[in-house]
């Protein structure tokens, strides 16, 4: 069966520091991968999606970036965090764009 992992679970970072969040999927190959952000009490905002290694599409211009160095690994990064980057970051995978998206446990990021 497929599983999706995210780490760290919780992160507290100062403004201006770098960021690296990792997401890995097991039990499937060539999945679509997604990064979402959820601000406190708000809905889901799609940040990036990837249909293959090295292929990244950005939905929202910002100081975040994403990379997919391996088939089942998706990384969310920032060179300098802003206060507004605080939130709950969710990674998801699907077999294709029409298929169900399955979500990881999420990372809670607090930027101080």
């Amino acid at each position, binding site marked *: 069966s497929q599983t999706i992992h995210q780490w760290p679970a919780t992160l507290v970072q100062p403004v201006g520091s770098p960021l690296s969040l990792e997401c890995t999927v097991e039990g499937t190959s060539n999945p*679509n991968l*997604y990064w979402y952000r959820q601000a406190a009490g*708000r*809905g*889901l905002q*799609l940040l990036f*999606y990837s*249909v293959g290694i090295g292929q990244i*599409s950005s*939905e929202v211009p910002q100081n975040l970036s994403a990379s997919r160095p391996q088939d089942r690994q998706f990384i969310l990064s920032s060179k300098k965090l802003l206060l507004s980057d605080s939130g*709950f970051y*969710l990674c*998801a995978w699907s077999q294709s*764009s*029409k298929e*169900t*998206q*399955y*979500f*990881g*446990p*999420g990372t*809670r990021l607090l930027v101080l």
Partner: protein
Amino acid sequence: AQKVTQAQTEISVVEKEDVTLDCVYETRDTTYYLFWYKQPPSGELVFLIRRNSFDEQNEISGRYSWNFQKSTSSFNFTITASQVVDSAVYFCALSSPDYGQNFVFGPGTRLSVLP
């Protein structure tokens, strides 16, 4: 205009009451998919159901049931005999070629089931 509307921001019910969460969507496509997810306080989104646009049969899974009506572009979710563990935020989502590769999520409905 919102592509997926969940007009109920918050709902509170007492345990054992039935509750219906509304979802209205917009698309010009004839082939599309609708989803419901549950987000408990832990934060992880849990998949509940996927329905394609050609299948209008209502679905029941235990205390959960879904009513899909293309005529009104609605995909409503009913919880029968609600329990405290049903307390969560519920999201409706649409996957449609009209909107490219990705899902369109509604804003969510926060359900509180009081003991």
